[in-house]
């Protein structure tokens, strides 16, 4: 969970972007990286295969400024979405403070979204977390494409608990910062409760 350093007056939190293969998790991080002030970001690391599919994780450290005299840093990670990289996904979830589920809104990816959401719950539970108790946000990505599942249906299948949700287009950046801001906000509110 979060790392509060009173000595250097820093708070570090870990956000994990989860979702099925090719849903746009890495593209979310790339957009954030491109649009962020160089002073506020560290290097983006992508451990990818030769075909640019995420192999282990992507990592982007973001320093968002001070809150109550503490430097606030968010460490953004993505997991590999392809089904067979389950071991990697479990490892990346260690110490997670908040989760973004990036769904692929295209009709033909509906089953993949449901499978990935179930996989997220199972992998979190293995580590003693309950998704319902974590700061959690959903992004329906690729919503600009013509063949998308209606939002009501996506909501019913992927978001029965009504967590914050956003339509997105990670390629153009639509919904990307709204999603990040919301999960960061939920994490800080959780910190407030715990504090």
């Amino acid at each position: 969970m979060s790392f509060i350093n009173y000595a250097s007056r820093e708070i570090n939190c870990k956000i994990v972007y989860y979702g099925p293969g090719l849903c746009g998790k890495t593209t979310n991080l790339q957009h954030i990286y491109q649009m962020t002030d160089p002073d506020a970001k560290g290097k983006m690391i992508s451990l990818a295969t030769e075909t640019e599919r995420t192999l282990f994780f992507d990592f982007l450290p973001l320093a968002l400024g001070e809150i109550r005299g503490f430097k606030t840093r968010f460490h953004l990670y993505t997991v590999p979405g392809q089904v067979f990289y389950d071991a990697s996904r479990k490892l990346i979830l260690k110490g997670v403070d908040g989760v973004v589920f990036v769904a692929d809104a295209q009709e033909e990816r509906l089953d993949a979204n449901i499978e990935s959401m179930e996989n997220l719950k199972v992998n979190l539970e293995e580590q003693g977390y309950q998704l319902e108790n974590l700061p959690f946000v959903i992004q329906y990505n690729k919503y600009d494409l013509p063949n998308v599942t209606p939002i009501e249906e996506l909501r019913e299948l992927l978001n029965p608990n009504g967590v914050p949700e956003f339509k997105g287009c990670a390629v153009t950046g639509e919904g990307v910062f709204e999603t990040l801001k919301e999960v960061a906000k939920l994490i800080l509110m959780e910190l407030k409760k715990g504090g």
Partner: protein
Amino acid sequence: MLGPQSSFVMYDEELQRINIVIERLLREANAKVIFLVDKNGQMISGVGETEHLDTTSLASLTAGNIAATGGLAKLIGEKEFSILFHEGEKDNLHISIVAQRVILVVIFDQRSSLGLVRLRVRKASDELTTIFEDLAKKTAEIQASGGHNSPFAEITDDDIDSLFS
């Protein structure tokens, strides 16, 4: 002991004690850089020639490396591998787990040797374990007393919005 899912809190006093131990280890092991990383990938402290290093990325990748190697260990029936060693052309990495929660990384070159590093790391690990046990106790006591004056208790929506402005 600090659990894997408890918030990790560091105070001035313990950080100073940690830095004394790793600065001494740096000298005694003839190392170039030493840093401590939380298993979740957060940098705790670093000493030595750190100015040209991307320590944030190193911390994240080290934790990822430990996690992946831990996965390998489980597959062959081991709990975890407590020491990893990477040999480079010039610089080498000696990585070990301290107090089950923290990763100690020593970067050294030909001015030192694996044997010396291993020897010195063993002694420093014992000292660091004591400090982290004290830290875990202190954190538990403060949480139990409910008396910690967290700076985050008073966070407002405006504070959060200002981070994204």
